[in-house]
């Protein structure tokens, strides 16, 4: 009996190994055809460590294509920017090409990751629909409408999207004459989350095309804006449709779900997607399309 108990206890290996934590490299990069490749390199921390993020500014960051080194990235000027990024100067990434990032730094395992920029899916149109205006606080009107985003999902392909909506408006200063323009990215509540739509932690929402494959899509985004009644400079809505790689979608959707889930002690944690071999983070490509629509109050 005692032998049995000992054997059972011996089988039991509670694994709470937070003491001897070994950090790894964290690589974060979303790249597209317009801006070259920017890579942020930092060091992961023990979850018990509340110190600031340690960025790695002595790493070697290389971009490879089919076994050929395309470019060794340079660290940006960190005197002005708070966060160091490694950026490409010559390389303009192309659609459909597999790029591999290789990052090495002393004291860490070398990490690699591969991704590509998917073919761009264009926006068919962006429309203001179901517009209504009702008086709000004195001197103000509340405009309620659906911002309808139309695009056609390519058939028989797995596609992923990130839709961003920006509100460009004019703020009238106290003197009533001076105006400034500002652009605000819209954030969405996790209440919109489904298996195939996730509110992104940083704004916009992510879409997986499984239930809509090959269809012409209309996405109505309900919006409510309060504006001064006499304003002449009307708001503009800017819609950005990013066609993103699967790595992009999985990483950002799991980060978003985790950010939304953080305060619930009884919930199971969200498992993060990671495509950095020997490290953490994401290296993912996307392409983008954009349309602007003006709000025309009645």
């Amino acid at each position: 009996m005692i032998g049995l108990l000992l054997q059972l206890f011996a089988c039991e290996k509670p694994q709470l190994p937070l003491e001897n934590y070994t950090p790894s490299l964290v690589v974060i990069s979303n790249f597209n055809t317009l801006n070259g490749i920017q890579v942020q390199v930092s060091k992961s921390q023990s979850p018990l460590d509340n110190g600031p993020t340690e960025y790695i500014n002595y790493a070697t960051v290389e971009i490879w294509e089919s076994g050929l080194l395309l470019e060794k990235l340079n660290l940006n000027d960190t005197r002005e920017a708070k966060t160091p990024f490694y950026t490409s100067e010559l390389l303009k990434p192309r659609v459909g090409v597999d790029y591999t990032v290789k990052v090495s730094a002393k004291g860490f395992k070398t990490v690699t990751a591969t991704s590509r920029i998917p073919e761009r899916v264009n926006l068919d149109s962006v429309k203001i629909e179901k517009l209504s205006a009702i008086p709000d606080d004195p001197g103000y009107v509340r405009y309620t409408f659906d911002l309808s985003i139309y695009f056609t999902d390519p058939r028989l392909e797995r596609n992923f999207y990130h839709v961003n909506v920006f509100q460009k408006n004019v703020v009238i200063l106290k003197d009533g004459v001076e105006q400034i323009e500002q652009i605000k990215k819209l954030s969405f509540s996790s209440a919109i989350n489904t298996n195939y739509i996730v509110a992104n932690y940083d704004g916009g929402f992510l879409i997986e095309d499984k239930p809509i494959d090959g269809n012409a899509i209309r996405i109505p985004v309900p919006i409510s804006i309060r504006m001064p009644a006499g304003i002449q400079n009307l708001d503009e809505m800017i819609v950005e449709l990013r066609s993103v790689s699967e790595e992009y979608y999985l990483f950002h959707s799991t980060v978003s779900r985790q950010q939304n889930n953080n305060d619930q002690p009884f919930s199971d944690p969200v498992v993060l997607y990671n495509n950095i071999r020997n490290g953490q983070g994401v290296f993912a490509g996307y392409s983008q399309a954009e349309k602007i629509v003006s709000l025309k109050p009645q």
Partner: protein
Amino acid sequence: MKGKLLPKLIIFCFFLVSALQAQETLDRVVSVTFEDQSPAKALQHLRKSFDLNIVFADSQLPKRNNFPLSFKRQSIRSILNSILANTGLAFHSEPEGIIITRVMLTPKIRSRYTIQGIVEIGGSAETLIGTNIFAINHNEGTHSNEQGVFSLTLPQGRTRISVSYIGFHTDTFSINLQQDTFLRIYLHRKSQQIEGVVIPAAMQGDGMNIGKYSFDLEQLQRMPKIGGETDLIRAVQMLPGVQTGPDGVGGVFIRGGEAGHNLVIIDDVPVYNFNHAVGVLSVFNTSIVKSAELLKGAFPARYAGRLSSVLDVRMRDGNKEFWTASGELGLISGRLTVEGPIVKNKSSLLIAGRASLLNWMLKPYSEHYKSRKGEKGQSSYNFYDFNAKFNIELSAKDRLFFSFYRGQDHFGNTGDSQDTLSLLVDDRFEIYRFRKVYHEKLYWTNTGSSLRWSHILGKKLFSNTTFTFSELNVNIATASSDTVNVFSAAAPKIHFDADYGRYLSSIRDFGARSDFHWDIAPGNKVRFGLRVQHNHFVPGIQEYDDDFQEYISPDGKISRRVRTTGWAFYLENERRMLSRRLYLNYGLNWSGWNVDQRNYSTLEPRLALSYLLSDSTYLEASVSRMSQFLHLLSGTNVGLPTDLWVPSTGKIGPELAWQYTLGFRKNLNFGWNIALEGYYKEMKNLVNYSEGADFLDDWEQNITIGSGRAFGMDFMLRKNNRIIDAYIAYSLGRTDRVFPKINLGERYPFKYDHRHDLKIWSDFRFSSTIDLSASWTFSSGLATNIPLEAFTVEIPGVPPVTVINYGPKNSRRLPAYHRFDLGLNFHFTSPKGTEHKFQIGAYNVYSRRNPLYYQLRTVFVAENGVLKKDSELVGVHLLPFLPSINYSIKF
């Protein structure tokens, strides 16, 4: 004359001596063992072994017959009677030997008659379920059904009947069967002091017993208790193959199944939430439980609707002979039961209530705790259960039963805190006074009732028609306000923000069923029936009003209401064959579900067999297909009442499982029993929340359909005699899951994948008034996740966020769970007949800190006058050492 007389006298004497010798031969006492039950071989063996001249024709004899293989010190006559029983053959002695011939029956006389009867408890007329009724000299038997009724058809003539039930004195009597007969049999409970307590019962005896456990009220009351509370579900958790979370939290998980895969019925009414206090206790008031049977494999066709287990609980009917009352008081609750006849021996009424007594401790403790944080307020938790049962004997063939249950849990939490801050603004001090007030309520209510009509259709056919209603309501209400008063040289300002939230969910179930039980012949029973149910689901309605109201849909609903209709037909045959060595139960259940104008149906074949290999060794095997159209979604890992029952819909099919079992059991010497059973279970169409979703989301848009598998073995070694009753139950198991929207679609271990699970229980009876019950539980740690590392995600133009890497889902293990419980029972009866029971005990005697989960907590600490953020991984524990005391009295 003399010359003629002498030869005649000699011849007469010769015949007389021969006849006497023949009679002597038949009365000769011998011991003999036969190889098998072939009458021809047995007669040849007798002829050879005892030098007998037995005359018979092989062609007249059947190939096999029911007779014991071993006879010890029995007459040849008795042995021959057994060998030739029911063969239509008889024997008589002749001078030349024992002649076996065919008996010629008078055609008009029936050879078999039926004994029909009901078995009740002496002193209360409560019916007994599963009583063994056995005709000793015919080697035929049966058992009473759920209404205590039985039917046994036997050959005409005198026969001895034995009626036995565990914990009761066996009643043996003779009956001269010349016509169909109705018997009302009363069994009397053994005094507790000498009762052979068995937890679980039913490891001995024939029939399919592996994977089936029966409980008895007396047995339950001896087990160690939490705060003096006897609990059925905690007894279930002590069985092999039954898993749960630390201290019972999280639900019951059987052989790798989910919490919602267990069909729990009380008097045929499904109970949708059987937990009090997140699973530490259950809704079953053990004062009114007559019987409880757990099936975790080899499911008969009459059970359907869940994948993993059936817990069939029957309420007592109430004493039909005299009024009686009993009460019980422990640290957690008090209970009172009153029962008695409305019309003596015709109808009875039972009423029982239980109410928690936790608030006397919880309220002052929470007040004290909150006041240390500078907050006024308190937390409260209470629950109650109410049970009632009425039954009436309408005629000799008709009985009507009505039972009702209602139970509610109520959790409340209030707080009111204030703080004042003085800030220098534009060279002037402004005083900010903050006030936060909150009020939270969570309550859930179970209601169930059934009306059953039991009818005896014929001497071998019984029916039950039952109407059921069951409902579970969950209500959550929160209200909070934040006020900031700003006192400044300029005009004072007040900022006020109030939030209000309400969440409701419910499931309502109306059902009707007819079940028929047909005792065709000894060893051949058929059950068949049909069931219809209508469900109404309100899976989640939320009303919310705060700054983010634009995100709430206009009608305040987060999920739609769904109405469904389900039905099932079943046919089941229970056979005893091959001289009662083979027990066979096979059948088919055909279930259907109508929802969203779509029909689903599933065919569920069932097969269970038990074969007697030798005197007391049984080999058992089973195959079952199960399905369920109801799914329990859990958004938490601790089994809160916010877990949501949802139906199969137009897009979600039924969950399906195949289970295969193979095992053996053996009754050993000196009261030892051993049982071992292996199982393999495949589950398909399992329904779960997608990762990151919870009960506040629209469930239909946030679920994922996957599969699971479980395999392992359950072992039990038990000892039972007058002084000690004890068992060791061990399970070795493995179970995992794969869902497209969980763990990035990779297979992962199920949270309750306890590799090892060991339970040891014993009850020592020191004297007629004192016994000591002790149990020790060990199980491998739950599969879990802990934060492994943190890192920052920063993209140009986007503010950084810190994320946590937890590794693959359930890739870590909590420390092993173990706990030792103790209970010392005193019981005595006063000269006036009043029964007193007293138990003192302790839960978690060595106060093992078993973590429920680990949480990353951040605290602010002052270090050298500087405020510093500090994080630690904290184990959240539930129940430490808890003393218990319990007193019960029965008048």
